[in-house]
C-alpha cells in the first residue's frame, strides 16, 4: 500500500513527507490517531496549600495541566488499569511540588519533580506572576491520558493536503507570466521556458494561477491519491516519526480488537 514515502522536510519537532498511492480514509485515521489517541503525561490533580496570588486556584491548575511534560511514557500505566485500582501509585503517577514567593514570575522549571527520573518539566513556560508578599504553595499529580479526553494530553498536530500538480498546454501558452505574478505565495517559477511548481509545500491550491491565465492553458489540481502529510510535535516525549509509527500501531491494535470481538 505505501509504495513511496519521500521526506521533504525534517527536524526535531516537525516532519513533512509525501505519502504516495494512499487512500484518504487511511490517512485520515492516522491523522486522527496522532491527535487524539497517543498517550502522554499531564498534570491532572493539584492540591493547593496556599494561594494568595491574583489568580484563583482553578486557573492555575489549568495552566499547570497544559504544560507538556516530557516523560518516558512506556514506564507509566494508565491509572484505571494500574494495580493500585485508581488510588494512585508510583507506577501510574508522577508527583510534583511548587513553592514560590513574589515578586517574581513563576516558570514551569520552578515546578519540581519529586524523586522521579522518568519525567522532565520543560523550561521557560510562565505559569503565573506573583506580586510582593504573594505566595503560592502546591502539590500536583500527573497521569497518563489521551488527546480525546482533554487537549492537554494532545501529543502532536497532524495535517495533510493533496499534492498539487500543474499541467500546461504549451500550444496555447504565450509565456506571459501572469500566473507567476498572480500567485499569492509565489510558488511558480519559469525554468527553460517552462512553468514549474517549485514549492509544493507552500502551494495551497487556490487556483489563482488558473484564473490569471488569459489563454486558459494552465490547469492546477490536487492529486487525491498523493498526499503531503505534516506532523508537528507538541509533547516532546515523542519525535515526529515516532508519532506516526505509534499512531499506526494503535490503529492496528484497534483493528485486532474488533476482529477478536467479531469472531
Amino acid at each position, binding site marked *: 500500500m505505501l509504495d513511496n514515502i519521500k521526506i521533504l522536510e525534517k527536524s526535531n519537532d516537525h516532519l513533512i513527507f509525501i505519502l504516495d498511492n494512499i487512500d484518504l480514509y487511511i490517512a485520515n485515521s492516522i491523522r486522527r490517531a496522532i491527535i487524539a489517541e497517543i498517550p502522554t503525561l499531564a498534570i491532572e490533580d493539584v492540591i493547593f496549600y496556599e494561594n*494568595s496570588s*491574583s*489568580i484563583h486556584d482553578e486557573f492555575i491548575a489549568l*495552566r499547570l495541566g*497544559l*504544560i*507538556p511534560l516530557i516523560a518516558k511514557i512506556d514506564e507509566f500505566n494508565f491509572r484505571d488499569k494500574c494495580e493500585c485500582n485508581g488510588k494512585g501509585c508510583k507506577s501510574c503517577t508522577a508527583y510534583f511540588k511548587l513553592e514560590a514567593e513574589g515578586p517574581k514570575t513563576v516558570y*514551569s522549571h520552578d515546578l519540581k519533580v519529586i524523586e522521579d527520573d522518568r519525567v522532565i518539566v*520543560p*523550561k*521557560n*513556560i*510562565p505559569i*503565573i*506572576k*506573583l*506580586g*510582593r*508578599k*504573594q505566595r503560592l504553595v502546591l502539590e500536583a499529580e500527573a497521569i497518563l491520558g489521551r488527546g480525546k479526553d482533554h*487537549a492537554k494530553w*494532545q501529543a502532536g*498536530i497532524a495535517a495533510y493536503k493533496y499534492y498539487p500538480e500543474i499541467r500546461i498546454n504549451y500550444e496555447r501558452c504565450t509565456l506571459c507570466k501572469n500566473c507567476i505574478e498572480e500567485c499569492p505565495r509565489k510558488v511558480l517559477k519559469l525554468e527553460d521556458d517552462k512553468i514549474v511548481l517549485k514549492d509544493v509545500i507552500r502551494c495551497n491550491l487556490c487556483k489563482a494561477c488558473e484564473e490569471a491565465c488569459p489563454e486558459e492553458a494552465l490547469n492546477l489540481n490536487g492529486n487525491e491519491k498523493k498526499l503531503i502529510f505534516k506532523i*508537528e510535535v*507538541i509533547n516532546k516525549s515523542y519525535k515526529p516519526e515516532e508519532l506516526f509509527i505509534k499512531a499506526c500501531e494503535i490503529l492496528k491494535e484497534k483493528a485486532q480488537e474488533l476482529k477478536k470481538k467479531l469472531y
Partner: protein
Amino acid sequence: MIIPIRCFSCGAVIADKYEEYKRRVKNGEHPAKVLDDLGIKRYCCRRMFLSQADYLDEIIEIEEYKGP
C-alpha cells in the same frame, strides 16, 4: 491576563516564546519579523501573540497597593 500556555485552536505551546517576542517588539522590531524568527507560522498561533494584553501586571499593582 497572562499569555495562554497553548494556542486555542491548534494546541501548540506558545507561552515560552512570549517574553522574547514582547522584549523584541518593545525594542522596535516589527511583530511579523519576530514571529517568523520564533518559528510561529500558523495564523492561529500568531493571533495569540498579536492580541495579547497583559492585564495581570496591572491587577498585581492594585493588589499590592491595597495590601493583603
